[in-house]
């Protein structure tokens, strides 16, 4: 009979196989697998199995409209990918956007969280709700709102810019200004990052701020020496999710250009290129190969982030 009442009672010496299967280490492992069980089952059914199938698909010329004619083509799809100018264009476009969007999102979400966590602020809960609110608008709708807002003739932004003497660009039809425009649209997506930051900020013990204040630390020093180190696991989480989200950016650009990648292929991000190969041209095999390229890029970037952050992230209550 298994003893499940607590590990301390089993510290009494036992012998041989009994120790191995009924000892605290075995029981801990048993419970560990029980708790991660739902995920393990889901991993097999919804991720690992389909991944193997998708990998197999990327080695064929599988076409959704003629599945019975599927042939094994080896790594032809991957070779073709390196020569495909649209794939190169889409990677460059995605990187251009990421270089603008990721830093902007990280800074804006932390700035909002700090502002909304300020002890000198009245009306906090109203402001938090208001900043989070755009997250609740379906992306299709919020994108259409922004397209209207940025319209050089009937929108408001260029009118406001004009009133301070600046001639606004044609945001969504310029292959340069489309990136700031998408970054502005993306600002409405910082709600989750901001809330996660806010949760982290509220977890910082107030004694530390008290101590810093008594030691005469200013706002900037407190931010750099206390706040950011203490919420660094949360910042890392946000950064990784933001990079991944950027590489999976889809709904906004699809709404913007109906999938055409306008203007001038500037919004032909890698995810859109993949989607078009799969659902416009039915080249499922080739699309699977692009999906694996996308996965490889994101994996390398994520591992790089973890590697860079490994010595800079602080876990409270952990023996790391």
């Amino acid at each position, binding site marked *: 009979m298994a003893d*499940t009442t607590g590990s*301390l009672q089993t510290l009494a010496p036992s012998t041989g196989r009994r120790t191995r299967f009924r000892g605290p280490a075995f029981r*801990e*492992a048993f419970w*560990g697998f*029980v708790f*991660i*069980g*739902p*995920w393990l*089952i*889901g*991993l097999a059914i*919804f*991720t690992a*199995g389909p*991944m193997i199938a*998708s990998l197999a*698909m990327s080695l064929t010329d599988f076409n959704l409209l003629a599945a019975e004619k599927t042939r094994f083509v080896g790594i032809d799809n991957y070779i073709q990918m390196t020569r495909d100018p649209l794939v190169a264009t889409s990677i460059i476009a995605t990187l251009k956007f990421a270089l603008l969007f990721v830093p902007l999102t990280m800074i804006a979400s932390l700035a909002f969280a700090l*502002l909304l966590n*300020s002890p*000198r*602020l*009245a009306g906090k809960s109203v*402001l938090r*709700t*208001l*900043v*989070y609110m*755009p997250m*609740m608008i*379906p*992306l*299709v*709708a919020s994108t*259409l*709102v*922004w397209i*209207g*807002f940025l319209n050089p003739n*009937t*929108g*408001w932004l260029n009118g406001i810019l004009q009133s301070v003497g600046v001639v606004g660009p044609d945001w969504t039809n310029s292959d340069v200004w489309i990136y700031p425009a998408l970054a502005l649209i993306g*600002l409405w997506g910082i709600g989750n990052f901001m*809330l*996660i930051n806010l*949760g982290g900020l509220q*977890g910082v013990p107030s*004694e530390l701020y008290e101590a810093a204040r008594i030691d005469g630390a200013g706002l900037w020093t407190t931010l750099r020496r206390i706040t950011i180190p203490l919420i660094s*696991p949360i910042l890392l*989480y946000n950064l*990784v999710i933001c990079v991944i989200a950027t590489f999976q950016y889809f*709904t906004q650009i699809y709404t913007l250009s109906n999938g055409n990648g306008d203007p001038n292929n500037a919004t032909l991000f890698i*995810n859109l290129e993949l989607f078009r190969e799969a659902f416009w041209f039915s080249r499922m095999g080739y699309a*699977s190969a692009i*999906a694996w390229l996308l*996965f490889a890029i994101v*994996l390398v970037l*994520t591992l790089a982030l973890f590697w860079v952050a490994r010595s800079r992230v602080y876990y409270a*209550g952990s023996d790391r």
Partner: protein
Amino acid sequence: MTKAGTFAAERSFGERSSVARMYRRYLAKASVTMFAFIVVAAYLLPLLYMVTMSLEQPSQVSAPGAPPWPAAPMTATYEGKSYPLYSVPFPDGSTRQLMLIDAGRESSKFIDPSDATATPIEWQGRWRTLQQAWAFSPLVENYTTVWNELDFPRLLRNTFGIALFSTIGAVLSSVLVAYGFARFRFPGKNLLFIILLATIILPFQVTLLPQYVIFTKLGWNGTWLPLIIPHFFANAYNVFLLRQYFMSIPRELDEAAMIDGAGPFRILRSIIIPQSLAAITAVALFHFFFAWNDFFVPLLYLASKPELQPLSIGIQQYNALYASQPTLIQASALLTMAVPVIVFFLAQRAFMRTVVVTGVEK
């Protein structure tokens, strides 16, 4: 200065400084609050644009000289007929709002609507250069049109049902899995955690097509099941976030409970969950709104079942149909966000009540 005088001055300075400190604190609070409200107002300005647009008549959107708020051209009746009102400047510098009854090329006849005798006024100049007079006039019809054409109550029911069931599954499973990763040692744990992270960054397109085949073979295509059941197997985003929180809870609390004879489920229920209610609430909120706004998966599985479709699909199809009518589109966007905003306002209270209280502060 005498000794007594110095003492009195010091005391009065002390009182003044306490008043000054209170005043300074009040001023700091007022300025930070004002700054925050201005920033947030700017952040949400496109929403005001949306509200404005949704209350405007389609004809106002492209009309030159129209005001930025919902308005209609002013009219007045004269001898049973309706005439438009114009802002007419006069040589003496005054401007009057008059109805144009007889438009001519170089001179036109106007009547002052407040003039009981209705004496026509001859005005020299080109009437086409005049600004039409607009009156504030919000149009609610856009909303009723959208509500009826979209069968909004049905869309709301579907969206809420899908979001609720998938949120229950996501929260239950993610708490269990995050607890497993945060608190137990088991063989292959590090490898499994790396695999979990890899599933976060796995583009959903990689598994999309084989999944579609599986769900279709199971006969789930055209039902809510593909939208709900996968969430009962833990979401890597949620597990990662919850694990980060669980790891920051001091292990001493677990160990104290363990000495008192608590088992793993008991520790989860009485230590881990109460310590991280804010994070769990956050995960539930995130997932609810993710499910509410999800577009791609419902489109994939419910394209042929309009009676089961959620709001995002209904709105998108409506947008595709009425792209040339921004007033209706903005009204539909507003109606779509109304319920999530209310739900969030309600959940906000729970969120605030359970604001992180760390082990250190307790």
